[in-house]
Structure formats: C-alpha cells, structure tokens
C-alpha cells in the first residue's frame, strides 16, 4: 500500500520495483489465477515447507491495476493449512476473485 503510494521509494524506483514484481510468475496459480486474464498485477508470494502435511505458510500479495486505472492491494496469508497445494492455491485464487469483483462493481 505504501509502496504503491510512493511513500517508500522515489517514483523511479517505485515504478521499477512494481514493474519487476509484475514479472513474477512463479506462483501464477494463486492470486493471479483469480483475476481476469491479462490483468496487470505486481505479485509477492511466499511459501514455507510442509511438516506432517501442514504447511506453515502459503501466501501471496498483489498490487492489481483495475480497469479504471486505480489499484487494489491484496495481502493474503494462509498459515497452518492442510490439504494439497492445489487446494491452497484455490483458496488464494478465490480471495482474488471476490476482491476484484468487489472493487470493480
């Protein structure tokens, strides 16, 4: 949020960081999967290992550009989750889907 507003870095560096984050495609099955195809989103995922079928952290954060040019910041942290990676990804995709629908109505 404060990164997006340019409170942390110069304009040039803010744009560079967000631009680099838009190239993050390691976890496109999470928040990005819940956004309409082609939506610009700067992403910052995070993932822990798994212990006895429980994953400590399965996260994703996004700065999404909406059709009207405004921005939606989503921070989603899933901790202590059981289930498969596909299940966990689907949880985060659902978060993005409802957040996008809420912001674009």
């Amino acid at each position: 949020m404060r990164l997006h507003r340019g409170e942390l870095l110069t304009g040039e560096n803010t744009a560079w960081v967000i631009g680099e984050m838009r190239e993050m495609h390691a976890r496109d099955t999470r928040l990005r999967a819940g956004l309409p195809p082609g939506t610009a989103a700067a992403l910052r995922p995070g993932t822990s290992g798994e212990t006895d079928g429980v994953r400590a952290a399965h996260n994703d954060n996004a700065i999404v550009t909406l059709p009207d040019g405004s921005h939606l910041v989503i921070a989603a942290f899933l901790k202590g989750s059981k289930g498969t990676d596909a299940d966990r990804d689907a949880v985060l995709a659902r978060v993005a889907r409802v957040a996008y629908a809420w912001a674009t109505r």
Partner: protein
Amino acid sequence: MPKLLPCLLAASALAAGPAHASELHVSIPKLDRTAEGIYASVQVEWKNGWRNGRNYDAVWLLFKASGAERPWPHVRIAGTGHSVAAVAGPPGGVAVADGGVGAFLLPTADHRGPVKWDVRLRLNARDVGTDEVRAFGLEMVYVPEGAFLLGDPDPAGVDYNAVYRSDARGEPDGLYRVDSEDAIAVGPRRGALFYKTKNPQFEGDRLGPIPAAFPKGVAPFYTMKYEITQGEYAAFLNTLGDHATAHRAIHGGHLYTASRGTIRLDGSTYVAGAPARPANFIGWDDGLGFADWAGLRPMTELEFTKAARGTAMPLPHDFPWGTASADRLARVIGDDDDLVTTGAADESTLSDATRDVLGASFYWVMDLAGSVWEKVITFGHPRGRAFRGTHGDGHLTDRGNATNDDWPLGDDDAGGYGYRGGGYYERGMKPREYVPYSPTEWRRYGSWGGGPRSIAYGFRAVRTAPQPRPDLANELRQIAAASGGTLGVRVVHAETRAAAGVNDDDWYPMMSAYKLPIAIHALRQAEAGRLNLAKTVTLGTDDRRPGFSPLARLIEKDGPQTMTLRDLLSAILRVSDNTASDRVLREIGGPPAVAATLRELRIDGVDVSRSELQFAADYYGVKIPAPYSLERFMDSTARVRRPAGAAPPWRAAHRREHGVGDR
C-alpha cells in the same frame, strides 16, 4: 416529468415545464481532480419520491465527457469512493451498475416527498481525461423480485390475444403464473403458456420456448417512471455526432409539429419547446439508440405486465392502475397537448387509493397505459426470443444505432418487438380499443415489429437491478472458514482506502514475502548514495542457498556468476531467488539494517530478522556447518526428523506481518 439534464437547455426546460411535473434537476458536475481520482459533485433533486415497504423510486445517473468533439464519449463510474449527503429528504445510497456505465441513486430509508441530495461520485479517470463532464438523470422505479400472473381473467381477453395457461388441447385453463426466470414452454400442452392469434404478424407466432435468458420480470429491475420526454430526447441528440443526429433526429416529418412534437434545431442545438411532454415519433431504432446511449435496455412484454400489475390478483380487463375502468382517470393529454393531471389531482397525492386517478401502476410507474404506446420486446417472434437482456454501454455506432447484438435492431419492420398499453392519437378521437389506453394484457399489437415514427409511439427503457454490492468481509470469512488453515486477508482499494479483511490482526509467517522489505531497503540505500546498484559481485559455490534458487543451480552447473546488485534485486523480485536474497542482504548490512529501515518507515508489523540460511537452519533445528557448503547443510537437515506436533520455529519469532496489507 423528469428532466434529462439538458444543461444546455435548462433555461428553456424550466420555463416550459408543466406545473404537475416531477421536475428532476441534475446540476452541472463540478470536477475535483485529486491524487486518488476524479470526483464529480452534482446536486440531484426531484419531487414526489418515495420508499415504502413495497418499493422505491430512484434516479439513474450517467456521465458524458463534454469535449469539443461530438459524440461526447461515455464516462464510466468507478466501483468505489462514492457518497450521498441528504440536503432534504431521506438518506441516499449509490448502486453502481456492472461496468460502471451508470449508477442508481436510491433512498435508503422510508419516505414520501421531495428529495435533494449532494452526490459525489468517483469517475473513471481514463474516460474523463482532460474534459469536463455532463451528468444526465432519469427517474426510475424499482420493480422488486417476485412472481406475477399473466393473462386476463375476462374470458373475452383471449380474443384480444391475452395469454393463458393451456390445457392439454390448447384451450385456456386459467392464468399463467410466472414464478422464475427459467425458460417458459409455449404451446398447446397442459401447463404451458399459450395464446390465440388471428394474425401472427401482429400477435405472435405462438412458438417457444421463451428462453431462460429472456428477462421475465421475476428478477428485480428498474423501469423509467415516465416515457422518454421531448427534453430528454433533445438532450440525447445534442451529445451525438453529426452523422448520428441525421439518423436519430425524429422531427423531420410534415406532421411533426402539428402532432405534439416540439423538438427543433436552433442553430446547431436541438431544443424542445415542451421538454416535459412525452416524446412521440420515436421509432424502434430511435428507442434502442437512446437505451444504449443511456446504459439501459428495452423492456420485454413480460416485464411490462409485471411493472403494471405487480403481485396483485388481476381483475377482468384490468388497466395498469388496478381497476377495469377509466372513469376516475385524470391523467390526460389536455387541450394544450401536454400530458397533465386535471382537477385537484396532483402526483404528490398519489397513493394506492388514487392510482386509478393518476394512471399509476401497482409499483407507481406512470402512464404504462395511455399517453404514447410502449414499445416492448416480444416473446412472439424469434428475434424477440433471442433477446438476452444485455444493457447499453453508452456507445453507439456512427449512425447512432445501438450496438447490442441480442437487441432486434433493424429497420422498422425487423420484427422482435411490439406495442403494449395503447396510445393517444389526436384530439377528438373517440375512445375505443387501445385508444387512448388498453387493458394490461390485451396484446393485439404485442408482436407487431413494424410501424414508422408516428404520433402515438414512444419509448421507455429499463435496467436489470444491479446485484447488491458484495459484502467482501463476509465472503472472505466464508473462504477462510473453508481454507483448511488460518487465512488472513486484507484488501485495500488504494485510491479510496475502501477496505475489508478477515483475521487481519493476527501474525503470519511471511516466508519469501519478506524479500520485498529487503529490496526496498536496498533501493533506499541506493537512493541515499550508500549503495551502488551497478556494482558487480561474484557469487561462488558457498553463496548457494537452500530453497528455491535458479541462481544456485546455475552456479553449480557453470561455476561462479558475476552480476550487478540490480540484477540480484531483479532475481529476488521476479523469481524469489534465495541465493540472490542472502547475497543482497549481506551487501546491505544484514537483517539489523533492514529492521532499522522498517522502523524508520514506521512499519512495525513486519519482522525481517534472519537470512534465508539462518531461517532454514532454525526451521530444521540444525547449526549452520562451518565451513559452510550447501551440500553439508542439506546433509545435516536430512538427519533431522522434527517430532510431530512440535512447534515450528517460525512460531517463536520470524518474518511476521501484523495487520497484513495496509502496511
């Protein structure tokens, strides 16, 4: 009568408005260009508003960018960031339609009487650009969800092509109840909808089904309270390009001005001499053009009946005002050609007891019968049944035609539409069937997709009610409950700060999300001149780190890698490379330096306390081997089997973020 914000025409419109009019006023928007977006402030005022246990009236507001070039482009309304302050009347709310093509302004508490609101709406900044904008308003009536009855209890209604529920032989077996938006079977079969015809071209082809996508009036919708007025139509023309006006201008015929028409061209501006008068001479494509331009759509025959009759039990040959008689009707086209209410009656006295005086429907929609004919999408023609109820997007073709592919657009004889409600032709005409009004369910012209612009033809547009704005917090709670763990979410609309979340005051392990503060710290160091991002560093075998790292694999394969710090930052941000992250962390003073920057920025909910390597060691409960190598480290972790149920080390202290999101 509503005044469609002819800012250009406001003076003449006000001067000519008849005394009974409802007089919607929409001011010229004041634009406030802020860092968060472009806001339009408008004052919206109308008379005779209401909200009661049954329904309410509302204003549909839309914006156009009023640049030097015509057509004026449509301006969408943003999803969030709106407010309504009541100057007089009830508190108000905003329901933005899908895609932001317009918004309903609606009362949020019961009331009856005048309304005056200061409305502030956030517009789509890209649509506005550097232009000024104009706002256009239409008075609407909310028609709530619910089942209703089709058909006329008078057996003679069948001869006027009223529909009925069929028995096994195709004969009437009572009224047809529409109780869902599901497809409706049509035909001579028990329980199906059916009707008799003498001339299918006028009354319908008696075929079906009526598909599920065809709007049936069970789902809630808004309809214009009145037919399009001449002032509204002139204001519409004034926003169009030259080519479009040549097609959409309705006042070219010999008889236009002799037939209640008052629209004229004054210089290059369309002016309505009687702006509150219902617009006649509206052809089908004219009505569709207006509807698309306004972000609305035509109504269907079924919606006409719903708006007229509501949930009331029908009487034989009932009119939309709920009785079978016009004896008390005081709503007439008077000697001066205006639609007026005679005697002591006045729209402010409208109640359920005076509907038949004022010509108001069950939901207090005005003039559904009488005044000018309503044009409706018919279920009696394949092109009508292909209608899916899509809404206008504010944009027309160069010729001023609607662009929705499910609308039965074409020349006047395209089919797919028809006429309901009857119409007033000229003074001295004896009342007869359909003149000047018709019982609700008589539909002798219900499927007649023909007729040029003429004295008794008007138009009224509708819009399916927007789904209520999703309750995001509630939806997130539901997702969290089914997440298989603890889900913490914070969602913030950056420009308006509108926000919602779930479990958002808990602590969470950030994992690689902690690399963002590292990158920010590095860039701030560079901005302060304490770090040169162009500096090259060489990463060797011992720089390799556990976890995800394409760079470590590259070193393993091709030997030491030399790259700039900016390249390393790029690797962190684009692929979350652990080797790159630890090397940058070392270059910038380690975790304490990052922590100091976070403190300086007053970001107190994020903990960046360890390197990737130290974190991995803590996670597995091993010491970092000295001398370090990735292989020796992995060997040591392979011997560890963490006891089941033991608290993982990240619980004790690690990359946590507090109040996730807005930090």
